[in-house]
């Protein structure tokens, strides 16, 4: 099972998008580095370093999916929930950078969007979802495990959304936004199930032995953690239901537009070059929105999901800053 949003090669998105995402990533990682220093004090180097090695190894965990096929963890949300969003974002960034520089996995000019999609969005966005969901769940180990599952699943979907939005701005080929969005988000909604289940059960295992190490569960009373347990089966069934409902909704959106092959046939000779100098084409690569009959709808959806993901990531960033500031240094 491969994840398309991961380790994109050189030239996959246009140069402008690579530069802009690179700048965003640089700024966010700069902020995150300062915060992880505040959070971990002089422990920052060994602790972040060795847990980064853990995330690298965790990506080698092949878990069964169905009938002998396997998937593997991405670990962005897991890292954020275990270690806090800033440390989580840093260590996944380091994993991505080392994979590009030392293992030739992912393009060097693609580092900007690869870091944004694989480290920043999953860590901060995933953590924001985790905190929001935890408010709805009871303050127990079960609540934390459930929230982890949903957050880890959502982090994979958000990475797919982020990639689709970047495609809208910097597509290197004329594939319509809705085709990319439908395919990416649909596929990742399914891939995310494994991520959610494994992350949740892993956090459950840590809670059972060293609950003080789970950053996202520090408010819990360690005494009450002893019993509450969630059955794997309940979890798997619940997770699949949520994901299937979501995938159904997304695919409705994708199916609502003509499917790729039909669209090509439909669009033959219908390109109106007179429209090419509109403001929309100035902002967006003219590919992504080219030849779509309902351009407004497609841009509207892109705008809404883009805003939601951005708000979540911003919320995660904000919480990362606030929690580091208010925390009593002695307890770290």
């Amino acid at each position, binding site marked *: 099972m491969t994840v398309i949003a991961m380790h994109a090669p*050189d030239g996959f998105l246009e*140069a402008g998008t690579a530069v802009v995402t690179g700048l965003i990533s640089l700024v966010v990682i700069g902020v995150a580095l300062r915060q992880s220093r505040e959070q971990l004090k002089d422990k920052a180097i060994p602790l972040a370093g060795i847990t980064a090695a853990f995330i690298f190894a965790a990506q080698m965990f092949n878990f069964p999916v169905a009938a002998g096929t396997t998937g593997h963890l991405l670990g962005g949300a897991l890292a954020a929930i275990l270690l806090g969003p800033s440390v989580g974002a*840093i260590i996944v960034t380091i994993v991505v950078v080392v994979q590009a520089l030392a293992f030739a996995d992912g393009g060097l000019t693609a580092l900007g969007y690869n870091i944004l999609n694989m480290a920043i969005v999953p860590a901060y966005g995933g953590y924001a979802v985790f905190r929001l969901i935890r408010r709805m769940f009871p303050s127990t180990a079960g609540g934390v495990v459930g929230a982890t599952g949903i957050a880890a699943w959502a982090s994979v979907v958000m990475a797919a959304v982020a990639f689709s939005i970047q495609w809208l701005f910097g597509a290197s080929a004329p594939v319509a936004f809705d085709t990319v969005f439908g395919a990416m988000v649909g596929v990742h909604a399914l891939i995310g199930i494994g991520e959610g289940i494994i992350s949740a059960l892993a956090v459950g295992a840590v809670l059972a032995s060293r609950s003080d190490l789970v950053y996202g569960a520090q408010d819990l009373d360690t005494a009450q953690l002893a019993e509450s347990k969630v059955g794997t089966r309940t979890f798997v069934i619940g997770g699949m239901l949520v994901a299937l409902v979501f995938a159904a909704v997304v695919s409705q959106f994708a199916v609502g537009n003509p499917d790729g092959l039909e669209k090509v046939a439909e669009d033959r000779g219908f390109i109106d070059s007179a429209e090419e100098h509109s403001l929309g084409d100035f902002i967006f690569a003219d590919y992504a929105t080219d030849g779509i009959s309902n351009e407004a709808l497609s841009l509207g959806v892109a705008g809404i999901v883009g805003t939601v993901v951005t708000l979540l990531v911003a919320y995660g960033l904000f919480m990362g800053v606030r929690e580091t500031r208010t925390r009593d240094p002695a307890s770290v």
Partner: protein
Amino acid sequence: MGAGHSHALYVHEHSVVHRMAPQAKLVAALGMVVSIAITPREAVWAFGFYAAVIAGLTGVSRIRPGFLAVRLLAVAPFVLFALFIPFIATGETTEVLGITVSVDGLWGTWNILAKALLGASVSILLTATTEIPDIIRGLSILRVPALFISITTFMIRYLELIADELGRMRVAMTARGYDPRWISQARPIASSAGALFVRSYERGERVHAAMLARGFTGEMPMPSTEAIDRSQCAGVLMLVVLFAGTAIVALVAT
């Protein structure tokens, strides 16, 4: 990583490229991939030129072409996506072997294929001729923030240890007859992940305590940054100018 050439991509050889200073190679690789990425897709000759230079460098580095080809398989998922583009892309269409495909889409496929494969070749050449500790040293000479470098160094130092620990857990599970086929049987895997995290974290704490005992103050002593060898600058400069020049000519010409 003390045992030398332990990472999969490094090829132990004695070539000019292997001996180049890591920071010089990093600058050269970055200059080359940026040039490749900004070259307009219509400039087919430019990509041919890049490929020829990269092939030459591969020869000079004494890397077998077969090794490069196998490593290039890493971009396969994206190549697959690229191959689909002509069928799902919009715009003016043409007939190829009786199948209707988008002209713009074909260019898109070419664009992704050429840039992904050339870019990946440069990355593979870099990793095949430079050991990981040298890459990190190069980054630190290029003024990447010290905290980032220190954490990365620690990750690389402990990576194989943690990965081995993971391997032992897998062996232990297999020895007990663990052979899951469905995700609902994956709890042992997840528990191992949790256990591995706790072990990694506790190892971090122990290492920190040991560092404190040896006088650690929160900053890592940085390896002395040697002066850059001027003779290597020329070679690197030539490569970057060659690639950047080609990209600019291609940009102007199309």
